């Protein structure tokens, strides 16, 4: 029986779905080459949904549709994060698409569907809902990557993304079917209670492995990272920006729901696996990033390294460790968005500023944006006082508290290697001469948004207390 509370719990999702469909229809009647109506409506949808989510967020954890949907503190925070990031991503994308001349209304509709998928994934509380959200998200993203039909690189990226993504989904489903076979339930809560005394069941371990492969693929952890550099590089920059930020939050939520809510009794098993994934990711990501000449590809490898760090918080197996990971993923999404925003900022018609060399002498061309990029790079490298430092700090602290001092030492070792390529970008901007002194051509909104993005990393870095407290409080309620 579907009750009114069920409907109320998913009201933001229903609103988002309705609006996405409405915008799709309206867009077909629009002749405006700038697609203003579509764009503003999409942004409005995000804002209204964000308000709805914050207003409807229950004091206590709410369940809907027979425990297959959950609305808790973590869901609220992550969803708000997705909306904020989505808002910025749409803004950057609109500029990019206008400049590069293939502005289409479908882009925003697909974006909204992707965000809807993220919302569902974040709130999913049964295997089926997880899969539903994941597929909605992934399919929208595949289409977005492929949207620029004239670009062969984008088509190639879309193809790779789709084939490998479909395979990962298959793995995930296979793992889910095994878990269902053992427990006879799709509800994560029931699964957790059923397997409490049965963790050594070999079928269950197999199921866990396959589920973990699916998660690792979606996050882009080594050795399931092959798609990341190609997709990041091949996609149009605005799509890269979109899929490198908010979906990470959703993928983190998926890991939390499946591993922590569903398979917490098997902590010992997945902890070991995550340690391997995490060390491999940090090593590969940081080392390979050094030799990249394309900044999108470099950021892709840096993303892999960051995911390795993110997994560290998850594997500590404590509520505050999960809070650390959540804090990390939100901050990472902010930084990654800003970095790709810079690539969009420097580009113009028929020109993508996606080579590292395009950043040469930026401090002469635009001292302000060179400074923003400096903040972004130092923040990603984890140098205080920027926000990225606190992200790393929190995860490291939880590792040390959980007794993994050696792992913390390994992590900082790899982050030293990582510092090198971030410094390289700063070197290009500040120490080298520009090849051309072309003025930066970007709209006021774009400049403003990027400045907000960069300064947020500095100001929140000086005052990280509030954001930290939010992450801790929602996780300690959840646990």
């Amino acid at each position: 029986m579907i009750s009114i509370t069920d409907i109320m719990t998913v009201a933001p999702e229903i609103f988002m779905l309705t609006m996405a469909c409405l915008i799709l229809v309206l867009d077909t009647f629009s002749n405006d080459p700038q697609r203003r109506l579509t764009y503003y409506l999409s942004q409005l949808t995000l804002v209204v949904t964000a308000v709805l989510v914050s207003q409807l967020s229950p004091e206590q954890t709410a369940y809907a549709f027979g425990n297959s949907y959950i609305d808790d503190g973590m869901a609220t925070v992550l969803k708000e994060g997705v909306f904020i990031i989505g808002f910025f991503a749409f803004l950057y994308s609109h500029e990019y698409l206008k400049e590069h001349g293939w502005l289409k209304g479908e882009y925003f509709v697909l974006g909204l569907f992707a965000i809807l998928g993220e919302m569902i994934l974040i709130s999913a509380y049964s295997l089926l809902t997880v899969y539903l959200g994941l597929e909605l998200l992934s399919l929208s993203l595949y289409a977005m990557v492929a949207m620029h039909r004239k670009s062969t690189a984008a088509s190639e990226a879309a193809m790779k993304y789709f084939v490998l993504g479909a395979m990962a989904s298959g793995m995930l489903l296979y793992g889910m079917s095994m878990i269902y076979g053992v427990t006879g339930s799709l509800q994560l809560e029931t699964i957790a209670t059923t397997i409490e005394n049965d963790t050594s069941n070999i079928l269950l371990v197999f199921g866990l492995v396959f589920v973990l492969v699916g998660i690792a693929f979606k996050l882009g952890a080594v050795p399931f990272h092959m798609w990341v550099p190609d997709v990041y590089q091949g996609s149009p920059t605005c799509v890269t920006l979109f899929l490198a930020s908010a979906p990470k939050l959703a993928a983190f939520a998926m890991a939390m729901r499946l591993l922590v809510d569903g398979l917490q009794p098997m902590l010992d098993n997945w902890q070991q696996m995550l340690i391997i994934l995490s060390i491999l990711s940090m090593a590969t990501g940081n080392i390979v990033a050094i030799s990249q000449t394309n900044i999108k590809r470099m950021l892709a490898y840096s993303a892999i390294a960051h995911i390795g760090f993110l997994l560290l918080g998850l594997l500590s197996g404590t509520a505050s460790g999960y809070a650390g990971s959540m804090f990390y993923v939100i901050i990472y999404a902010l930084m990654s968005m800003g970095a790709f925003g810079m690539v969009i900022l420097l580009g113009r018609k028929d020109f993508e500023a996606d080579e590292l060399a395009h950043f040469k002498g930026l401090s002469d061309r635009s001292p302000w944006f060179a400074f923003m990029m400096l903040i972004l790079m130092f923040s990603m490298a984890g140098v205080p006082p920027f926000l990225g430092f606190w992200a790393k700090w929190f995860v490291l602290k939880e590792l040390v508290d959980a007794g993994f001092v050696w792992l913390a030492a390994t992590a900082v070792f790899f982050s030293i290697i990582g510092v090198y390529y971030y410094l390289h970008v700063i070197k290009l901007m500040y120490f080298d001469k520009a090849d051309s002194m072309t003025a930066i051509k970007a709209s006021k909104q774009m400049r403003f948004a990027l400045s907000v993005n960069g300064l947020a990393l500095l100001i929140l870095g000086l005052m990280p207390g509030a954001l930290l407290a939010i992450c801790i409080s929602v996780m300690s309620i959840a646990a």
Partner: protein
Amino acid sequence: MLAELPILSLLIWGPVLGGVWVLYAGDRQEETVKTLALMISVVTFLLSTLLYKDFDITTHEMQFVEFAYWIEAFNINYYLGIDGIAMPLIILTTFITVLVILAGWEVIEKRISQYLAAFLIMEGLMIGVFSAVDAMLFYVFWEAMLIPMFLIIGIWGGPRRVYATIKFFLYTFLGSVFMLVAFLYLYSQSGTFNILELQDLPLEAGVQKLIFIAFLLAFAVKIPMWPVHTWLPDAHVEAPTGGSVILAAIMLKLGGYGFLRFSLPITPDASLYFDTAMIVLSLIAIVYIGFVALVQQDMKKLIAYSSISHMGFVTLGFFIGFSIYAATGSTEGAVFGLEGAMIQMISHGFISGALFLCVGIMYDRVHSREIKDYGGVVNTMPHFAAFMMLFAMANAGLPGTSGFVGEFVVIVSAYQANFWIAFLAALTLILGAAYTLWMYKRVIFGEVANDNVKHLKDINSRETFILSMLVIVVLVFGIYPAPLFDAMHPTLEHLFGQMLQSKVGQ
């Protein structure tokens, strides 16, 4: 009424915000920007003298304490305070920054506002390091400081600046991150980042050793000790004059400060366990690096190596205390050694800064740092030669200059522990004299070597002023170092008490 002012906060944030103001003012009106930066640094210096005036020399407690909650969830606080170790170093920082701003007056041609702003921001951050009583606050300042220095070397440095600055950053970052892990471990044991509470935290011997090594990585790189010193000559050679001065005069001291604030009081048993190793490393730095300095062709490199050698004295003074106590049974001698090391840090700040400024003055005119490009400078720059003479003598440890006091005190204390340690350390008096005076002779005396030297102009009034200020402090502290000893004595005595207090099995 003055006592009510949050002086430390003003000292930290005044220069930082001042730096932002200078940046905002931009390069359009060069003179205004320079004057503005100078005013900010002078005001900061005057403000810092209040620290000395109101300093209570009878206690080892933290003074000028400021406290505010920062990140309550983790008990991280904005907790500032200074004791007898930090106070002199803060005044050193503000003093040297004024001179550095003056030294860049006519020399820096590009992006002058960014240059000045970087130094001002760095000044604030360095004062933050010296006054933080919360380990995380300390760490944030400690790391943030690398950013302006990285840019200073990279933007305004010499031909191999990129290599030098990246090496500088990676080396120091490498050291510090392990210190961070050590802090986190201490936090997981105690639930606090308050340095004073961490100093009382009982720790098992094995754990102490690991923490000591983590701290050592951070501080040994910074100070720097042999064999992790190799970034320093590169950074010094490539940095602009101002950058070299700040590096030598203050940044190296951060490493020494770290030993006093963290290594010795938090891990006393491990310090005792490793003290022989530390003494050996210090002696290697003093003797071996002294020989390395002897063969340098580049003046800046020579002074850089001389710095490493002098810093060897500092670490020797820190870690010799245990053996002095074991040999004599009195704490007096050991505390004396620590005081000598501290005096050596302060005095080295003045002298090495002065020498780098001297080389900078010649470099601005001839654009070479090679010794062979000079000769007979005294003929064209007599006033300059006189100033440099004094600083060279001070570097060699001539009695009457501040360079003598620190070295002498450390050697005398070392003698109480072991004759041979004192003997090896005393070799520096010979080596130091050899490399400094030999360089001086080749550069300043003799026939006029070439046309460049022939056309040299003697120092102008700005340069004379900078060097005179340094001459005054070098002589004052050489003749009458008592105020420094008095200020530091209670703190260092307390510190040595902590070093003797075993933390194992409490």
